[in-house]
């Protein structure tokens, strides 16, 4: 009972944090906070922040709660992005008077569905492997998805949709143009939709984690053999975590695709998967709140570092290494413990961490 209450409080704090952040941003946009005006470039980052928060939280489900290192999360994002863009553009062309919100929702849903299908197809072979081998296969799948999308051409001709593999000569207007990616997309994404998507993601992930299935997922992570001995179908629960994570990444991808007029498939390469993994690890593996904060801060960081000009990414890299060493080195860890001796003993925390 007490544990339930703690969970509830914990979740409430996370939701509260997101809602307050959203309200502050809205106030800042409308200029109601005295003396602070959000710059254009920062405003442009609002939707990507939402996207990366969703990506990080969903990857945390795989890496943190299910304990499987996935290096191909951007693959699901790209499936979601291109299917979402396709549906949204098709709806816009086939039914010109449909409200744009409906198009956004349709894009998000279809992005989630297609990424989920990809997740199932990939999960079946991948989850048979362990550890680093699993990681490399997810990496391979991410690259395969990117390569396939590079060869796909879709065009819209009124109500009909044409598809060509490695063949750009299609009737009508090209929507997805091979290596050029999605072109001429109606930019329908907004910060509000992104905020709702973040809340939806939190709702799904937190409820999953605190449910019977979530406990099974974590049991399978902590000790596969013991979990199997307790009658948990490990593959099934790993699959649940993996596919849920893929669906959410697909929805994030759809939002991302609708935020830009042009999105190339190269945007979703291995680097993006790694970027999201950095958010998860830096925020603390298995900590949803940490993922949110890390994703938001690290998405803004390159913008804030713009004044460093060419040195921007250099500083970013140094910050990344320094933070990892500072938070993980035993030397500094001892120092922190000495400064704050009242901190809980690691043994007590072990159950939660």
């Amino acid at each position: 009972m007490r544990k339930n209450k703690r969970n509830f409080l914990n979740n409430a704090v996370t939701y509260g944090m997101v809602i307050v952040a959203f309200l502050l941003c809205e106030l800042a946009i409308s200029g109601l906070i005295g003396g602070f005006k959000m710059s254009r470039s920062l405003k442009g980052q609002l939707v990507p922040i939402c996207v990366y928060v969703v990506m990080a939280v969903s990857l945390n489900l795989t890496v943190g709660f299910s304990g499987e290192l996935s290096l191909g999360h951007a693959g699901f994002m790209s499936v979601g992005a291109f299917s979402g863009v396709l549906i949204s553009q098709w709806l816009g062309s086939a039914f010109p008077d449909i409200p744009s919100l409906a198009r956004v929702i349709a894009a998000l849903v279809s992005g989630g569905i297609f990424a989920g299908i990809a997740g199932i197809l990939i999960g079946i072979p991948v989850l048979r492997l362990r550890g680093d081998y699993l990681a490399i296969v997810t990496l391979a799948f991410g690259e395969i998805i990117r390569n396939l999308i590079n060869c796909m051409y879709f065009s819209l001709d009124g109500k009909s949709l044409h598809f060509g593999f490695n063949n750009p000569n299609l009737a009508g207007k090209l929507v997805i143009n091979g290596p050029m990616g999605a072109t001429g997309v109606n930019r329908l994404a907004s910060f509000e939709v992104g905020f709702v998507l973040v809340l939806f993601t939190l709702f799904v992930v937190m409820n999953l984690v605190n449910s019977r299935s979530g406990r099974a997922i974590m049991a399978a992570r902590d000790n596969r053999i013991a979990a199997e001995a307790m009658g948990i179908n490990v593959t099934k629960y790993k699959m649940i975590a993996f596919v849920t994570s893929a669906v959410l990444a697909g929805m994030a991808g759809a939002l991302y695709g609708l935020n830009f007029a042009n999105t190339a498939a190269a945007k979703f390469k291995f680097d993006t998967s790694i970027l999201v993994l950095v958010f998860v690890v830096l925020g603390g593996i298995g900590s949803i709140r940490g993922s949110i904060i890390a994703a938001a801060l690290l998405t803004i960081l390159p913008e804030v570092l713009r004044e460093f000009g060419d040195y921007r990414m250099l500083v970013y890299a140094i910050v990344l290494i320094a933070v990892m060493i500072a938070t993980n080195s035993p030397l500094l860890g001892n120092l922190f413990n000495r400064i704050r001796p009242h901190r809980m003993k690691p043994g007590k925390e072990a159950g939660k961490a």
Partner: protein
Amino acid sequence: MIQFLSFLISGISLGSVYAIIALGYSMVYGIAKMLNFAHGDVIMIGAYIAFCTVQYLHLPPLVAVLAAVVVCTVLGILIEGLAYKPLRQASSLAVLITAIGMSYLLQNVALLIWGANPKSFPSVISLGTLSLFDGRLRITSETFVTILANIVIMIALTLFTNRTKMGKAMRCVSEDKGAAELMGVNVNSTISMTFAIGSALAAVAGVLLCSSYPTLMPTTGAMPGIKAFTAAVFGGIGSIPGALIGGLLLGVIEILGRAYISTELSDAIVFAVLIVVLLVKPTGLLGKPTHEKV
């Protein structure tokens, strides 16, 4: 037929480069149990160093290769000492992220020093081209040297790990770090040594890679790095013959796929083969199966 042969040879040449890179990955993984993502960028630095020695200092190619090897060896030891050593006890994911940070760092340093524009790498090996079958099959000297270098490196490294004291220490550390330490093996210096060897190999690979594919950019090393890591896993990570076989197969599949199936899909084919292999043999072609103990 002759065309196939020429594709096969360029596949073996590319595969040799992958094999040399994969060796570095594999050794570091075997000993430090970490994915050194910065390895691909050490290749790039090596290639730039060779480029500068030839282009600006006008030194002979052999000196350029030596300079690249020396700089990369020092760089490898520095990276290990500054970034990875403090994290020896940390979780493997933390080390992975640090390695990624290191990779960004190297790329951006290269970007600042040499700029984003691709440099055209002057071939350091220009001994002419061998023409066979009335010039229908042409084998460049780059190809020959690459394959030869691969063979020499493989033999030397196998002898080193099997016959020398340091090699024995490396095998000990990769098997059981704690027990090795108890037996008087200096674990830290062994790991540094591994990074030094891996980085020296990366420098050689960088020069060979850019001799055959002469565009040099700060991101040149990234994709070969990933491919080589795939090759290492393919052959069974931690095994020297595994890296050789994995690298060669990967190179041949990539070139043949590009030639006969689709240029755009060559990477996808490589990765698809990897997945199939791992599904049939989950620890790679030559990897030892591990049994889980309760």
